[in-house]
């Protein structure tokens, strides 16, 4: 099954995906991962990328589809979980819920915490569910295009991936590109793929296959977060306000937020598909559009359920969209999808067209699982939000050693190798310094993943052309990717415009007690 699939085959794979996803083990995996994701998301010290990185090794021994479902569940759960602490303690659990805090906390102060949580839950559910539509329909089409890629295109594809993530997710474009180049150098550690000679192994046999990507991910995203938490004064979190009203929306309220959810779905989906933009931008854009179209503008900043719905539907709509470039082209647009890509690689799978031909049954099982995850998120969110709110008060002092232990276990578990633990610590320290000095950890990780693909693409191309670099400019697809790379470098200006456009009405409570600078930059 190497050719592109027909419509009938695709439909049959979609159906089979649901059958495979509905096994008891997969359902249990969905419930557990969504719960874990919500816990991680509602803890203001932790982020979605960090949670996925930390739990990546747990998926190592699972079936690939189950492993991906677990990671998808953590991702969706964490994005929704951030809204719980945003609404109840005025502290967004993740940057993706920063806009939710503006009106969510106002509703809490008015004794409508249940209403705010129900709105966040329902909007997140519909945002996530609708985003699956684009996942089902755009991903195979893009994968078909990716089938035309040969060595020169693969080289430019890796360059495009790096320029987009380095450009968009960094405060300084040059620093982002430097981070990518540093990652490219680190990706050369290990055996030379063409000449078969050892490179830069520092006498360590464990580095024969290069740097273990999962260890690097755990170090850069999770261990570095421990060090970030350790350097700050341990603060007591705000008290959780008791949820006295029912966690339910009336039919009239549901009708009121429906147009907002639909608008935010489109916004979040497009933002998700665009490599480089993420849920933190989408939530403000969704909120902003909800404000622009609302007939009750005066409620915004004073407790508007439309505001909560706009932000939450948009940030969860990002999830499905952001998987498209990652699964089809191997270009993760942000930190979480870069880590999710690590989850694919750990299973021995390479993102790209093969996921939609050779491994199509596994991919469609994951897609079906992703749809079902949204239902689990709705149920667990509605039932458990009051309980999760208490977890969100957990002190950073307790999180610091707990996360450290999980980092050590996770990095050891992959190859049962002590060197991997040391490697994780080195990347943890590197990640800490990288974040302190405004470099970009996501670009380093992406370069570690894309580096070998780009290297093989470049060297094979030159081998085929007898060393003539003109082969790199020989097809229209190469030129399209070169143009996209240039746009990738220019994209920070576009993103700045998008962020500036998302002007948010002032909250009477003042600024939201937001995340640390490093967390936001992540």
């Amino acid at each position: 099954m190497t050719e592109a699939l027909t419509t009938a085959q695709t439909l049959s794979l979609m159906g089979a995906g649901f059958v495979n996803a509905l096994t008891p083990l997969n359902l249990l995996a969905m419930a557990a991962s969504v719960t874990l994701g919500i816990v991680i998301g509602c803890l203001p010290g932790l982020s979605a990328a960090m949670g996925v990185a930390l739990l990546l090794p747990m998926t190592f021994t699972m079936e690939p589809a189950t492993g991906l479902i677990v990671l998808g569940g953590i991702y969706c759960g964490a994005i929704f979980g951030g809204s719980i602490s945003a609404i109840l303690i005025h502290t967004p659990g993740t940057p993706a819920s920063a806009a939710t805090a503006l009106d969510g906390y106002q509703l809490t102060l008015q004794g409508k915490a249940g209403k705010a949580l129900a709105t966040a839950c329902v909007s997140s559910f519909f945002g996530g569910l609708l985003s699956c539509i684009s996942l089902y329909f755009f991903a195979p089409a893009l994968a078909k295009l990716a089938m035309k890629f040969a060595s020169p295109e693969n080289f430019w594809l890796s360059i495009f991936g790096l320029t987009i993530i380095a450009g968009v997710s960094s405060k300084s474009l040059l620093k982002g590109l430097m981070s990518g180049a540093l990652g490219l150098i680190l990706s050369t550690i290990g055996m030379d793929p063409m000449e078969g000679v050892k490179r830069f192994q520092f006498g360590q046999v464990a580095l024969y296959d290069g740097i273990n990507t999962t260890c690097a991910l755990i170090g850069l995203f999770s261990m570095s977060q421990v060090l970030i938490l350790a350097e700050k004064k341990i603060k007591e979190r705000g008290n959780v306000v008791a949820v006295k009203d029912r966690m339910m929306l009336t039919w009239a309220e549901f009708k009121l937020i429906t147009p907002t959810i639909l608008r935010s779905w489109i916004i979040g989906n497009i933002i998700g598909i665009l490599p480089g933009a993420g849920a933190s931008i989408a939530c403000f854009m969704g909120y902003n559009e909800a404000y622009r179209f609302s007939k009750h503008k005066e409620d915004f900043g004073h407790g508007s359920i439309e505001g909560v719905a706009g932000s939450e539907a948009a940030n969860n709509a990002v999830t499905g969209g952001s998987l498209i470039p990652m699964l089809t082209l191997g270009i993760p647009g942000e930190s979480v999808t870069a880590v999710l890509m690590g989850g694919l690689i750990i299973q021995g799978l390479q993102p790209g067209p093969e996921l939609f031909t050779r491994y199509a049954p596994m991919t469609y099982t994951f897609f079906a699982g992703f749809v079902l995850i949204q239902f689990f998120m709705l149920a667990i969110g509605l039932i458990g939000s009051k309980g999760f709110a208490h977890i969100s008060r957990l002190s950073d002092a307790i999180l610091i050693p707990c996360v450290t232990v999980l980092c050590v276990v996770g990095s050891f578990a992959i190859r049962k190798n002590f060197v991997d633990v040391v490697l994780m610590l080195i990347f943890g320290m590197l990640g800490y310094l990288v974040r302190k000095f405004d470099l970009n950890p996501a670009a380093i990780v992406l370069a570690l993943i894309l580096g070998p693909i780009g290297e093989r693409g470049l060297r094979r191309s030159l081998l085929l052309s007898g060393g003539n670099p003109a082969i790199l400019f020989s097809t229209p697809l190469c030129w399209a990717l070169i143009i996209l790379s240039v746009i990738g470098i220019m994209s920070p200006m576009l993103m700045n415009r998008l962020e500036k456009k998302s002007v948010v009405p002032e909250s009477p409570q003042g600024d939201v007690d937001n995340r640390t600078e490093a967390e936001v930059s992540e």
Partner: protein
Amino acid sequence: MKKSDICVVAFMYGVCALFFSMTLKLKPAAQIYPKFVISLLAVLTTLYVIKMVMDAKKYGVQNGFDEVFAGFQAQQFFKVVVMILAFVVMLKVFGFYIAAAVFMLITLYLLKVPKLHNIIATVVIIAIVYFAFTEFLGVRLPKGMFF
């Protein structure tokens, strides 16, 4: 220009120098790609130096370190770092479970977590690791020299 950026630039040039010196020991065909990526980093770093110089002329030189390390709790940070390093060393000597329990109890004590919370957190995290990794995933965690 920020003085703190000098550290970034020095680090990047240091990486370039280290990898370049190692590249020269490889056979010629294997040198091409590493030289390409090293040059890439060197060029980007040099561009950043030029930007720093231009910024210095325009806006003057700022410290930058006070911004990078604002609110830095040195004592607390280094206590945690020392405990993490001790934990990794203890892993080899005492095995995972003992090392993790000692690490958790002492670190939580140093971070002034109340005794009861300290014990509960230690028991919970060790139970999670045992059931998730040892029982569910079948991962054999380090046993140490004595056990």
